[in-house]
């Protein structure tokens, strides 16, 4: 059974359809890159996966649970799915370590010592243990995003969602974040990543999904996606983002 399964997921904002019959799946341990022009619905799609955005038609199964069903305990399901946002979204009124501890204590019920130990280990891993007591506003964008990844990992997620994790970063900070993500992919984390970083896709993705105007236009293995002749729309997009 796939870890994440989308069956004809459709979503409307009023009369405007943002997602059109999106069907795909993510197996355990798979790394999927979702790309496409802005406004193509890729961020909306990934936010549907953990129920941050509701959808009107179709079915979305995560870890055997239907996300759209009213009987699903969404907070419980979300606690198992890590998510990293474009704008980091660290809590500005809490220190770095408190950001990592918060949900471990309040949602998973870990005690303060257990949580802090876990948090410190993860901060060491992303190279930011010296910044544990600082506030998010005192860190650079790249550092904040690494903290955000550590915060998501602190929940011991079964899968990770990334919504354009490097789009808000200055160019010189992109790699420090990508390095953490590559390492995570190589360890076998199940990942769904919305990004334009094709270098990342080439390195670790198993499949690449291309979206345009709310539709999944292409869903291919990495080698097929970058290798064989793709549809004109995909080629156009790739040539635009690869040669800028």
């Amino acid at each position, binding site marked *: 059974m796939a870890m994440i399964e989308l069956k004809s997921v459709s979503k409307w904002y009023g009369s405007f359809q943002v997602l059109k019959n999106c069907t795909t799946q993510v197996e355990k341990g798979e790394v999927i890159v979702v790309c496409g022009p802005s406004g193509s619905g890729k961020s909306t799609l990934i*936010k549907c996966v*953990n129920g*941050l955005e509701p959808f009107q038609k179709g079915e979305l199964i995560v870890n055997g649970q239907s996300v759209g069903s009213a009987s699903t305990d*969404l*907070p*419980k399901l*979300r*606690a*198992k*799915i*890590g*998510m990293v*946002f474009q*704008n980091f*979204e*660290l*809590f*500005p*009124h809490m220190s770095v370590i408190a950001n990592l501890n*918060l*949900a471990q204590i*309040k*949602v*998973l019920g870990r005690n303060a010592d257990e949580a802090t130990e876990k948090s410190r280990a993860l901060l060491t891993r992303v190279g930011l243990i010296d910044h544990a007591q600082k*506030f998010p*506003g*005192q860190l650079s964008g790249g550092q904040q995003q690494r903290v955000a990844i550590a*915060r*998501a990992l602190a*929940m011991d997620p079964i899968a990770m969602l990334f919504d354009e994790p490097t789009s808000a970063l200055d160019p010189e900070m992109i790699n420090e974040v990508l390095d953490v993500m590559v390492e995570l992919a190589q360890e076998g984390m199940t990942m769904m990543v919305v990004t334009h970083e094709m270098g990342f896709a080439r390195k670790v993705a198993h499949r690449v999904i291309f979206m345009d105007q709310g539709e999944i236009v292409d869903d291919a293995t990495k080698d097929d996606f970058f290798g064989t002749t793709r549809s004109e729309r995909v080629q156009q997009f790739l040539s635009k983002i690869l040669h800028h």
Partner: protein
Amino acid sequence: MFTGFDFDVIQRALPYLGQGMLTSFGLTLLAMVGGIVLGTVLALMRLSSIKIISVPAGIYVNLLRATPLILVIFWFYFLVPIAIKHISGDSYAQGIGPFHSALIAFTLFEAAYYCEIIRAGIQSVPAGQVNAAYALGLNYRLATTLVVLPQAFRNMVPILLTQGIILFQDTSLVYVVGLTDFMGAASKVAQRDGRLVEMYLFAAVIYFIICFSASLFVKHLQLRITPPR
């Protein structure tokens, strides 16, 4: 210029005026705390997507904000005893005293204003923060109390305090139910001793000093707590 005036009257009346000031401060502080607590609940209700929750809160706020404060004070002073009489079945209307009835009136009235301030404060917290809280598995209650409200209140502190200064001035209205606050005390002394000009001048100066220094403090605070985003 002030020949013929007797400013000693102030000194003689100081203990009495001090007691009045304590009533003013007490009313202000208690009504502020109560108003902010109730206002927060109302703000969360108004922001709810469920109509049975948001509509009553909206009606309450609009009703109270369209009513003169003095009328609300009267209502509670005269209507609460009648309500108690009905509920308890006593043969006579048992009041709760001017202080408590004024306190309830101020709390309910201020809650309507605090509600709107707090609602704006909550809406000033970016939606991404709420999403991040939910994505970590926090439920509505935890996301609201741990992530949204702390940031909202931090942004709101200056305007909440400014509203408190206005409330402090408004407490002078309690003379209508015979409660002696600072203004009431000054007024009584003025009339008893026939020293209207001296006492009202003194009261104005004291109100000005307190409110102006409080607003300077708020301004200073405002500069210090620009949110570190």
